[in-house]
C-alpha cells in the first residue's frame, strides 16, 4: 500500500504545482507547463507501445494529427463551419460537440487507424514497423493537406475553441499514468516484457505475441490521439505539419533516455528534454543557430547509449512508487509490481536492450 500512497502524494504535489504556476506565474509559464505535461503523457504511453514490448513505433505524431483534426472539426463553431469546411457532411456541419465526446472520438479514430496499420505491419519482423509508421506520418500529413474541404489544407485550422486548461491536461496525465502503470504491472505487462526479451520462449509459454503487440500499439495510438485533441484545444491552432518527424524522434529519445520499459524514466526524460529545448530557444535565437536544441538532444542520446545503454532507470521504477513488498515474502496473493523490480539487482547491471534504437 506504500506504493499507492506515494502515487497519491505525487499526484497531489503535481496538482499543487499546477495551482501555483497558474496563480503566480505568467500565461506563458502556464502554457509551458501544460505542454510539458502533455509530453509526459505522450512519452509514458510510448513507453508502453515501444518500451515494454520491444516494438519500434514512430507513429505518435501521425495519431496526434488525426486526433487533433478530428476533435477540431467536431468542436468547431457551427456558424463558421460553412466557409471553413465546405465539404463537411450536413450531420457534422450542423453540430458542435463538447470537449469530452470529441476527445473520445479523436482517440477512437487514432486507435482505429493504428488497428488497420498494426494488423498489416506487425506480422512482419524487424524494424518494418519503424519504417511503416514513419511513412504514416507523411501519409497523414499529405492527406490533411489535400482534404482541404475539411481541413483548410496547408493553411491549417485556426480559431479552434480553447476548451482545455491546465487542469484538463493534469487530469489527462494522471489518467494516462494510471493506465500505463496498471498495464505494466499486470500479467499482460509481464508478458510484454517477456516477449521483448525472448520471443520464442514467450510464445512457447503461450503468450499471444501478435495480440499483445497490437494492443500496445493501439493503446499508444489512442493516447496520442487524445493528446493531439487536447493540445489543439489548448493552443487553438493546428497545421498539417504541426506534429512531424522531429517530434517522433524526440519521443523515442525520451523512451531511450528514461530506460526501456520504465514509466518513471520516460516521464523524467520528457520533463528534462522539454524544459531543455525551451530553455535553449532564446540561445538559438540570439546565436541564430536554429536546431541547436535538437542537436543537443541527439548528443545526449549518443552519450546515453555509449555510457548507460539501459537508460536512466533500465526497465525499473523507483522503489518508493512500487511499494514495500520488494523484500521477499510472497504471503500476499495479489500481484505486486515489486516482482518486476528486484532490489537485488544493482543499478550497474544492464538489462539487455536488444531493440534499443541505435540509429
Amino acid at each position, binding site marked *: 500500500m506504500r506504493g499507492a500512497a506515494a502515487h497519491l502524494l505525487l499526484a497531489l504535489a503535481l496538482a499543487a504545482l499546477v495551482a501555483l504556476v497558474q496563480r503566480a506565474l505568467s500565461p506563458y509559464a502556464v502554457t509551458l507547463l501544460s505542454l510539458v505535461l502533455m509530453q509526459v503523457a505522450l512519452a509514458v504511453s510510448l513507453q508502453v507501445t515501444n518500451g515494454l514490448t520491444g516494438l519500434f513505433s514512430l507513429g505518435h505524431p501521425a495519431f496526434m494529427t488525426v486526433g487533433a483534426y478530428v476533435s477540431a472539426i467536431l468542436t468547431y463553431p457551427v456558424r463558421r463551419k460553412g466557409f471553413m469546411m465546405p465539404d463537411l457532411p450536413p450531420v457534422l456541419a450542423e453540430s458542435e460537440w463538447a470537449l469530452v465526446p470529441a476527445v473520445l472520438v479523436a482517440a477512437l479514430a487514432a486507435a482505429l487507424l493504428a488497428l488497420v496499420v498494426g494488423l498489416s505491419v506487425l506480422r512482419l519482423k524487424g524494424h518494418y514497423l519503424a519504417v511503416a509508421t514513419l511513412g504514416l506520418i507523411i501519409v497523414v500529413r499529405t492527406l490533411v493537406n489535400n482534404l482541404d474541404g475539411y481541413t483548410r489544407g496547408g493553411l491549417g485550422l485556426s480559431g479552434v475553441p480553447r476548451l482545455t486548461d491546465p487542469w484538463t491536461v493534469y487530469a489527462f496525465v494522471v489518467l494516462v499514468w494510471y493506465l500505463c502503470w496498471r498495464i505494466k504491472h499486470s500479467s499482460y505487462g509481464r508478458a510484454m516484457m517477456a516477449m521483448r526479451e525472448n520471443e520464442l520462449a514467450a510464445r512457447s509459454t*503461450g*503468450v499471444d505475441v501478435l495480440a499483445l503487440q497490437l494492443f500496445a500499439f493501439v493503446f499508444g495510438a489512442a493516447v496520442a490521439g487524445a493528446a493531439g485533441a487536447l493540445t489543439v484545444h489548448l493552443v487553438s491552432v493546428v497545421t498539417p505539419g504541426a506534429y512531424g518527424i522531429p517530434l517522433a524522434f524526440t519521443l523515442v529519445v525520451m523512451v531511450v533516455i528514461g530506460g526501456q520499459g520504465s514509466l518513471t524514466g520516460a516521464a523524467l526524460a520528457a520533463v528534462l528534454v522539454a524544459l531543455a529545448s525551451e530553455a535553449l530557444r532564446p540561445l538559438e535565437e540570439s546565436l541564430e543557430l536554429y536546431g541547436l536544441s535538437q542537436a543537443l538532444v541527439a548528443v545526449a542520446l549518443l552519450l546515453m547509449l555509449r555510457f548507460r545503454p539501459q537508460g536512466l532507470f533500465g526497465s525499473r521504477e523507483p522503489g518508493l512508487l512500487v511499494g514495500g513488498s520488494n523484500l521477499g515474502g510472497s504471503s500476499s496473493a495479489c500481484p505486486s509490481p515489486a516482482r518486476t523490480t528486484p532490489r537485488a*539487482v544493482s543499478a550497474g547491471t544492464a538489462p539487455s536492450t536488444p531493440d534499443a534504437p541505435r540509429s
Partner: protein
Amino acid sequence: MLRLAELWVRRGAGAVLHGVSLEVPRGELTALVGANGAGKTSLLLTISGILRPHRGELWWNPEGEEPVRLDRLSPKRIVELGVIHCPEGRQLFASMTVYDNLLLGAHQRRDRRAVERDVARMFTLFPILGERRRQRAGSLSGGEQTMLAIARALMARPRLLLLDEPSLGLAPQMADRIFETLLELRAQGVTLLLVEQNARAALEIADRGYVLEGGRVVRSGPAQQLRSDPMVQRAYLGIGA
C-alpha cells in the same frame, strides 16, 4: 498420447522432416535421439505449433477426452491443452527474476492462488530456485538455469512435456540430477518427450525411444531394445566401432 502421422516439415528451401511417424504413450518417457541437424528440434517446434507441417497429421489424445488435431492450432491454444515446450538452450527471460520467470510459465492460467501454490511446489522441487527467487534468471549457473527452465514449463501444468536437450552444456553430475528429476516427473504422471544428444543417458531412463536421422525415423522400439541394437550402439553409444 501424442501421435505423429507421416509428418513433413519444411524450413527454408528444404524439408527437415520427411514423413515422420511416432507415438508418445501416456505416462511414459519417450526419448528422441539423433545427431545435430537430424530434425529433433524442428519436430518439437512443430508439436508446439511454432513450425507448421505441410503434410501429415499431428494428434493429441488426452485421457478421457476427444482427440484434438494439433497441427492447425496456435501455440497459445496448444499450451492451453497442456502440451508444454521447454525449449533448447533454456530460453529464459534473463533480465527478469526467477519468480517472474515462473509466473510467466503460468501465463495462460487465471487461477492466481493455485499458481502461487505451484510456485511453492517448484521451490520444494528445486530448493536452490527458492533461495534465488529475487535474482535475475541470467545470473544463475547453467544447471540452475536448466532447473528454472523445467520449473517454468511445469508451471503451465503440462500433461505432455517436451524437453529439448536439457543436459546441454551441463557438468555430468548436474546432468544426472536433471535426468533424475525427469524420472520423478514421470512418476508423478507427466508424459514426457525427451530430445537428447546424450543418447546413452536418454535411453537409460526412457521407456521407449526413436532414432532420427536426416529427418527420418530409422529405429524405434523399447529403450532397452534400442540400447542393444548394434547400429544404435555403433552410431550413438560409441560401442564396437
